[in-house]
């Protein structure tokens, strides 16, 4: 057995030297006037106060042409069409599932937005409606894509592609959505021997890299065969690496995760989450990421 007890450590102040701190970023807090120029459009995280465009959250100002938004450091998931999400079924209703996706309202997965076994163009029958719980039941995890956003901000999801669907054995890691970097693909088979789905909503799914055989399963069959120990070791190590990176607010994408994994190899898996080891590994990862950028 192992038990590690210690006194809490005083947090190190991050030195904010002049050049580094601002970094050309425009940081605002709630109530800060961004501009009084009326030629701009008001985006997320702002409001109009007496003709003045004012920030309503603390974060970084982003300008896209005439549109001004403030992106907060940490927030619930603000889904956009096309985002990849990982979510958990919370309720089975008539013709729809309710899915928890770390959004401000539960998302909806309509029965008509899923591929049912037996081909894409099948009609949904009354039997399908009755058998909904056989496909997905409360507690099940799914990967999906945002299909549309309702007027109240709730998301409508779909799983009409073979890469989406019910998730089998693996580990879920939850981080802040703002830490997941937007990329062309959020599905990666990492060379260290496991696969990862980096959901835009901050839910990250780690699972053993699938073989060829379960391609045609339609996404509803989950293998309950034991996952081999080496795969588990990789997954557990990746899990701890993700948490270490998130604790130090490093953006998560395939390269950062992989570098962190490699830096962690000199340590025991269960030690990765100890503060001093976490510091060391993340520092090494940052260094490598900087070098790679050149």
């Amino acid at each position, binding site marked *: 057995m192992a038990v590690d007890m210690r006194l809490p450590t005083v947090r190190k102040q991050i030195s904010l030297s002049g050049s580094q701190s601002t970094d050309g970023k425009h940081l605002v807090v*709630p109530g800060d006037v961004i501009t009084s120029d009326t030629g701009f459009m008001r985006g997320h995280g702002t409001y109009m106060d007496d003709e003045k465009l004012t920030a309503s*959250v603390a974060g970084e100002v982003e300008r896209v042409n005439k549109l001004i938004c403030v992106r907060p450091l940490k927030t*619930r998931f603000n889904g956009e069409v096309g985002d990849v999400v990982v979510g958990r079924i919370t309720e089975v209703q008539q013709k729809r599932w309710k899915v928890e996706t770390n959004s401000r309202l539960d998302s909806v997965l309509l029965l008509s937005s899923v591929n049912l076994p037996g081909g894409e163009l099948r009609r949904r029958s009354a039997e399908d409606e009755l058998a909904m719980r056989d496909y997905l039941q409360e507690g099940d995890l799914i990967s999906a894509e945002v299909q549309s956003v309702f007027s109240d901000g709730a998301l409508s999801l779909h799983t009409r592609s073979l890469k989406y669907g019910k998730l089998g054995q693996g580990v879920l890691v939850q981080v802040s959505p703002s830490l997941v970097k937007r990329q062309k693909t959020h599905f990666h088979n990492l060379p260290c021997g496991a696969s990862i789905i980096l959901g835009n909503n901050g839910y990250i799914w780690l699972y053993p890299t699938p073989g060829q055989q379960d391609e045609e399963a339609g996404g509803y069959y989950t293998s309950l065969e034991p996952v081999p120990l080496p795969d588990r070791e990789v997954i557990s190590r990746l899990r701890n690496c993700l948490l270490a990176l998130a604790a130090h607010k490093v953006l998560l994408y395939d390269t950062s995760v992989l570098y962190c994994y490699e830096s962690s190899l000199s340590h025991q898996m269960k030690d990765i989450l100890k503060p001093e080891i976490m510091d060391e590994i993340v520092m090494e990862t940052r260094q490598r990421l900087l070098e790679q950028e050149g």
Partner: protein
Amino acid sequence: MAGLELLSDQGYRLDGRRAAELRKVQARMGVFAQADGSAYIEQGNTRALAVVYGPHEVRGSRSKTLHDRAVINCQYSMATFSTAERKRRPHGDRKSSEMSLHLKQTFEAAVLTQLYPRSQIDIYVKILQSDGGNYSACVNAATLALVDAGIPMRDYVCACTAGFVEDTPLADLCHAEESGGGTTLALALLPRSENIALVQMDARLHQDHLDALMEAAMMACKGLSKVLDSVVRQHLQEVSVLTRE
């Protein structure tokens, strides 16, 4: 004044402060990992923790759901060991329920709830150590927690108390001054617009003095807002330095 001299002839208070001086304020955002937002504040010996969950789907009875804005749900409680005399219950008594209601009203004035129809935002505050100005410590902690959770607000909400002793308004009362029997005014202010989110006075006061007292409380709130502002900016810079690509 019940034997205690709250303001000496030289103009010093019990703890050595000047009349308009605030207590030392220290705060931190992002104390807990599991909540959407959290903050801790120390104002002198008063210590408070605030945690924010949401916005999320309305829990419990769906009848609470509002179709045009978010529901704000507050709970104020005190740790049983927070007061000099041990408390028997952390919450649920009349005073805590009243405090919860006041907090709700205060934050409904500041949070842009219309952006989140049908959702709910939970704000839970806990007094860990009580030494006067519990309401204001809670408001200030909750403001920081809301900022941490990225919930849009018109402005910060800063709260402070003020009292009136021997024709002098005193800012940021400690427990001994609060229980001294004088007038206490609690004020929650949106500092930039100088709009008042909540004002409450519990004892009688001559009308002529009210302006002076309000003025003192507003000055104190603005002083506090500077402190909160620096805490938020520091946090913002630290995190943005860390996340830079």
